[in-house]
């Protein structure tokens, strides 16, 4: 066991010297208890210090180490080498994002999309509860209505799994919409109308064709595909309601 090796084929891109990305193979020690991130860290420490990638917590919480593993977006800290051994493992940066360097992507577009859905609690002007009244109370049922969507760690695996984000770059995307829904569902929030300007727009829920891969790859079981379809139903009800004569503004 100590002498066993396995191969990682890693997509490299150094903008100073490369016109386009290229694959480079690395032979790494095989350990039953190593995750892919361990093997990448071993390469960085022992073979090539220029290998560039993001990682932090190593325990599926920070959402930094998402990469394409044999074509599927996954957290490299949560995938063991033994899943593929002795076959080589192909590692690429998250799909559909521009590559900054090696396995690091440019995530500016995601940050902008995330902010566009206003993922924070919004209260109407003058309706903030005074501090002396204490916290906003919430029942377990009210918490349960949004808790699943609140588990998102912004790892962006869902974007790399969604062909719509690859085909239409303006698509607001799974995680941002799910997070918008997380706040819409929160009993303390009053910002749904503001978020609807983005969530119910052509670039958001109506671009989704319900491929469902975003939910399949989500490491936190957030189910963004479900969030988007539920938003479609609610927005459709909004539209029909707006046609009723007594609700017309």
């Amino acid at each position, binding site marked *: 066991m100590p002498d066993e090796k396995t191969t990682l084929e890693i997509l490299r891109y150094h*903008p100073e010297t490369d016109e*386009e*990305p290229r694959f480079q193979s690395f032979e790494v020690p095989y350990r039953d208890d190593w995750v892919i991130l361990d093997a990448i860290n071993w390469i960085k420490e022992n073979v090539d210090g220029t290998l560039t990638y993001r990682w932090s917590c190593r325990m599926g919480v920070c959402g930094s180490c998402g990469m394409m593993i044999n074509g599927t977006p996954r957290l490299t800290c949560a995938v063991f080498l033994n899943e593929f051994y002795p076959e080589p493992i192909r590692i690429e940066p998250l799909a559909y994002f521009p*590559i900054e360097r090696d396995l690091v992507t440019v995530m500016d577009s995601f940050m902008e999309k995330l902010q566009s859905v206003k993922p924070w609690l919004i209260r109407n002007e003058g309706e903030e509860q005074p501090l002396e009244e204490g916290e906003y109370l919430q029942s*377990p049922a009210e918490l349960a209505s949004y808790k699943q969507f609140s588990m998102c760690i912004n790892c962006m695996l869902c974007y790399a799994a969604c062909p719509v984000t690859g085909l239409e770059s303006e698509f607001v995307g799974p995680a941002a919409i799910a997070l918008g829904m997380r706040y819409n569902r929160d009993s303390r929030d009053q910002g749904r109308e503001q978020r609807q300007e983005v969530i119910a727009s052509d670039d958001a829920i109506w671009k989704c064709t*319900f491929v469902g891969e975003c939910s399949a790859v989500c490491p936190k079981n957030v*189910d963004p595909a479900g969030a988007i379809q*539920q938003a479609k*139903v609610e927005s459709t009800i909004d539209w029909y309601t707006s046609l009723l004569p007594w609700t017309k503004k």
Partner: protein
Amino acid sequence: MSKPYTRPMPRDWWNKNSAFRLFMLRELSSVFVALFALELLCFVSQVGQGEEAMNQFIKSLGNPFLLVFHAVVLAFALLHSITWFNLTPKVMVIRRGEERLPDVLVAGSNYVACLGVSVLLWWIVKG
């Protein structure tokens, strides 16, 4: 130096894995369901033109080409219905307090409704 590289979207992205292929088949199934709906409209129109036109239409359904077409439509209609029925729990979330109604009940209600409508139609047609 920043010179981000954007990889092109492969034309065959839909053939990358079985989930994408099933998705594309599900999308394609709507074409066949729509074609069958058109055929049904033609039938209704023939019925409106009298018994002779209706019988002529029914006779033409024995055409081997149409038999194959209907077999394909049936396969796609089943795929269409089953895949969408199975997706309903994601869309329709019914809560009782903290608990969510189990997916199998939400999806299952579609199958029960489908069976109910089919039996009703069969009963009317047999009439």
